[in-house]
C-alpha cells in the first residue's frame, strides 16, 4: 500500500488547486471501474463506515457503490434511530468506537464542524459528507469534475448559481472552488436567500468579483453553465415564507432558448419543481451525469486517503 495523498477530506479549503486537479485526474481513471467495465479488488479487506446522522440517498449510496466497486465492504447507519446515539451517546464516543471497526469513515451530521471534530479524534481517515450548512467537499469536486468534463476547462467559464444560496451547503464551497479556478460567477437568489457575506468575502479575496443579476433571463444570456439548487423546505421555520420563495423560478426549454445553444444545466439533486422534466431530454441536461460522476470522484478520494490505486 502506498502513502496516503492526504489524511482526511473535511473541507475544500484544506486543498490546493493542484491537489483538486489530481483528484479529478484520478477520478477520470476510475470511470471504467465505476461503470463496472473493469474490475478491481484494491480495497479487498477494507471497511468503509458510513455514519449518517441525517437522511441522504445519493451521497450514502454513491459512497457505498464506490467502495463496493473497489472491492471493499461497507457498514453503517442512515439515521440515529435504534443506535446508541438514541440512548444518549455523544458524537465523540461514537467516533472513537466506530473508528476501531472500520478503515475509513464517512460522516454526515446536522452540526457544523462535526467532521472536523471526528477527524481530530480519529486515527482513521474521515470524509465529510455534509456538516449542517457547512461543507460537502466531495460534492464540490464532483461538480467541478462534471463542469471540466463537459466544457474542457474551468478558467473563464461563465457560471450562474441560482436558488438557495444562503442555506445550500453545496453552493458555498462550490463558489469558493470556482473562484480558485478562475471562473466568472453570477449569483441569482431570492432576497431572503442571498449568498452569505463571509462566503462573498472569501470569493473576493481570491480576486473574483461575483455579478448579481436581477432576472434569470439576463443572467443566463452568456452563461456556459446554469447551476440550480433546491429551495430547502426544511430550512424554513415559517411555511408561508417557504411558499413565497419556492415557486420563484423554474427552468424550462422556453427559458433555455434565450441562452447560448450549448448551455448546460446542473443540479445537486434532489430537485422538486425547479427544473421542468422536459429539460431532461435535451442536451442541456447535465444533472444525471453529475450524479453518476459521484462514483468515480468518491472512488478517487477513497483510494487517495488509503494510499491505493487500482
Amino acid at each position: 500500500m502506498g502513502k496516503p495523498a492526504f489524511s482526511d477530506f473535511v473541507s475544500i479549503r484544506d486543498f490546493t488547486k493542484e491537489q483538486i486537479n489530481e483528484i479529478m485526474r484520478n477520478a477520470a481513471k476510475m470511470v471504467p471501474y465505476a461503470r463496472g467495465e473493469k474490475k478491481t479488488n484494491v480495497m479487498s479487506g477494507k471497511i468503509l463506515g458510513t455514519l449518517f446522522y441525517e437522511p441522504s440517498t445519493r451521497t450514502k449510496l454513491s459512497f457505498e457503490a464506490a467502495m463496493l466497486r473497489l472491492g471493499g465492504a461497507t457498514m453503517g447507519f442512515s439515521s440515529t434511530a435504534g443506535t446508541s446515539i438514541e440512548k444518549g451517546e455523544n458524537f465523540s464516543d461514537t467516533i472513537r468506537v466506530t473508528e476501531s471497526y472500520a478503515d475509513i469513515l464517512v460522516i454526515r451530521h446536522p452540526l457544523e464542524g462535526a467532521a472536523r471534530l471526528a477527524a481530530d479524534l480519529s486515527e482513521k481517515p474521515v470524509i465529510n459528507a455534509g456538516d449542517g450548512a457547512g461543507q460537502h467537499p466531495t460534492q464540490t469536486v464532483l461538480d467541478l469534475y462534471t463542469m471540466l468534463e463537459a466544457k474542457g476547462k474551468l478558467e473563464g467559464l461563465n457560471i450562474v448559481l441560482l436558488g438557495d444560496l444562503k442555506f445550500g451547503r453545496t453552493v458555498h464551497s462550490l463558489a469558493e472552488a470556482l473562484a480558485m479556478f478562475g471562473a466568472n460567477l453570477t449569483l441569482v437568489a431570492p432576497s431572503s436567500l442571498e449568498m452569505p457575506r463571509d462566503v462573498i468575502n472569501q470569493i473576493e479575496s481570491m480576486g473574483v468579483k461575483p455579478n448579481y443579476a436581477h432576472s434569470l433571463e439576463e443572467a443566463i444570456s452568456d452563461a456556459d453553465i446554469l447551476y440550480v439548487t433546491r429551495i430547502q423546505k426544511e430550512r424554513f421555520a415559517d411555511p408561508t415564507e417557504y411558499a413565497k420563495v419556492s415557486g420563484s423560478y423554474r427552468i424550462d426549454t422556453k427559458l433555455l432558448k434565450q441562452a447560448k445553444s450549448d448551455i448546460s444545466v446542473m443540479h445537486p439533486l434532489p430537485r422538486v419543481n425547479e427544473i421542468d422534466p422536459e429539460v431532461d431530454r435535451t442536451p442541456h441536461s447535465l444533472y444525471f451525469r453529475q450524479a453518476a460522476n459521484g462514483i468515480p470522484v468518491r472512488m478517487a478520494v477513497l483510494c487517495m486517503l488509503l494510499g491505493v490505486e487500482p
Partner: protein
Amino acid sequence: MKELKVQPIRNGTVIDHIESGMALNVLKILGITSDNIRSTISVAMHVRSKKGEWKDIVKIEDRELFAREVDRIALISPRATINIIRDYNVAEKRKVKIPPVIRGIVRCANPNCITNSNEPVETEFSVIREFPLTLKCHFCDRTQSRVEEYII
C-alpha cells in the same frame, strides 16, 4: 500632589490601560473569582490616563501572572500593559500579545457549531485579523468579532 484613586500595592500584578468598561471581563477571562484567590483585588473603572483617555485598572495583590495567562487579556483589551510589582517597584513591564491560536476561552458564535453541543470538546480559534480582533473557528470555519460577548 495628585491623589491616587487606587493605592499602590506592595507585591503582585497591575494590569493597566484596560479598555474602559472591560475590567470585569478581564477578571472573567483570567478565571479569577472570590473562590480561587486569597489576596485583595482592586478594580478601578473609568479613570483618566496621563494622556487624558478613559481606562480601567486591575490590581491583584501577591500574585504574579504568567505570560500565558495575561495574553488572554489581549483578546478584549489589546492595549493593556502588565506590571509585575515587587516591593512597591515595577520589576517587569510588558504589553499583552494576541496568541495565534486561542483554545477554550471563547465560545463559537455559530449556535449550530459542534462545540456548542454537549460534546466534550474545547473550542479552538485562529486569529485572522488583530484590529478589529477577528477569530475563525477551527471546527465550523465561521469567523467572528465582538469576542468579549463570547467569553466562556
